[in-house]
């Protein structure tokens, strides 16, 4: 079963990306995490996202377009990336999520990926 492991980071953590001195030590745990996911055969995809300040949010309502600078929500912790993992059980997914570096400093959301509907499904 596939799960999305959504990485939520604090502003402090995210700010490391913008600091040439800090970006290396900041990324190192994520690189290691990815290696571990690959080595154990559960890695099924994922990507880091650029800093939330590069995001643009868009809505279309009644033919009217609305474009905003910034991410969907200005919350304490913001989406920084995601991993897709393929595991047998939900527990396994949670165990992997606990090892994600942002689990220690921010939060991690684990959500099952929708599986394809039955061909003749109602």
């Amino acid at each position, binding site marked *: 079963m596939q799960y999305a492991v959504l990485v939520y980071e604090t502003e402090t953590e995210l700010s490391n990306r913008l600091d040439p001195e800090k970006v290396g030590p900041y990324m190192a745990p994520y690189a290691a995490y990815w*290696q*571990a*996911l690959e080595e154990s055969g559960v890695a099924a995809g994922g990507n880091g996202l650029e800093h939330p300040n590069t995001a643009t949010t868009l809505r279309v309502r009644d033919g009217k377009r609305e474009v905003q600078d910034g991410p969907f929500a200005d919350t304490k912790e913001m989406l920084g990336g995601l991993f897709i993992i393929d595991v047998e059980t939900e527990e396994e997914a949670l*165990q992997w999520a*606990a090892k994600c570096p942002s689990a*220690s400093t921010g939060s991690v959301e684990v959500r099952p990926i929708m599986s394809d509907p039955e061909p003749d499904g109602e």
Partner: protein
Amino acid sequence: MVNNDDPHFTIERVARESYGRLIAYLASDTRDISEAEDLLSEAFQKALQTWPENGVPNHPEAWLLKVARRKLIDWVRKRKMQSKHEDTLLQIYTSEKDANDMTVDDRRLGLMFACAHPEVDRSIHTPLILNVILGLTAKQIASAFLVKPETMGQRLSRAKSLLKTQQIPLEIPEQSEFGERLSSVVEAIYCAFGLGWEMVPGSNPDSGALSNEAFWLSEYLARTLPNEPETLGLHALMLYIESRKNSRIIENEFIPLDKQSPDSWNHDFIDRANQLLQTASEKKQIGRFQLEACIQSAHCERATTGKINWPAIITLYQALLQIAPSLGAQVAYASALYKAGQLDAAEEALNQFDQNSISTYQPFWVLKTWLHLERNKTTEAKKTQQIAIGLTEDKNVRNYLLQVWKR
């Protein structure tokens, strides 16, 4: 300021200290843990209503028990069909016999044995004990086990249902089964202690902070079954490990065991553990937890001898692997061989595993990295070090590994 006569304070205190005892007592009568929980919950609510007005009773536990029993009488009478057992119960409860019982019998041990019964799924033994004996919530337990709280709640319900429908006695088992059943209880308590934290760097020692609960349970078990060497062994093991608890992370920095300062260990705990091991050894019945405790004792000996007796530890692991082989023990054994300078033997010990069993076991990859580095296999080491770090849950240990392996 806390006032001992404050009803809310007392209720909280009684709840915390007596929950398990009251549940065990009620459950052994109702033979239904879920029902016992509901009865007790109602009794606590009644206490919250009446104690502020009428004052806290002299024997709060006995009061709660009486109310719970009265409630049960109501419920049983309202039930359309009554079992023979319920008839008997009604007779006992409505008689004046127990009216003056001030202390509540301790039936928790029997309840613990039921929680670790062979018909109950092994993976739920520990959560059940934590929930039923200590009153921990499904959410608290779920956190420690890294399980969805909803899922944990369902599993606990199912287990209690099973105990009821299978009519599993909530009692200490017969002599013939006792040894094996006791093993299950001891293992379940140990599991709570080691949750996520396999006494090696890599996992978060604060996983739900259940180590305190496990510690309490092991102390309770050693106290109630003082003639069983494995219960003494278990508690000794926990004392040794707890003695070093504050030395492991200092100012967010992880300090590996062999670099810790023995001055910072709790020597009172170590002394108590030594005594327990001594008493246990007199029974001449070696077991898994006595051996694990001996290994930890050897580590703690550094406080007096100034060094670690690796040959002794290696021998102890060999004995442990004979009676209780496990992934953790095998890797720890390999690690001891490495520390003792026996590289070939260490590598040999690590080759026992197939890819599946070790792929997510952090200590394996940590040791593999050290071994590669000893052999100057830098490319291999770079790979295994990434995996080891990627598998590390504890941020402080992660930082330590990133530091210590920096090129």
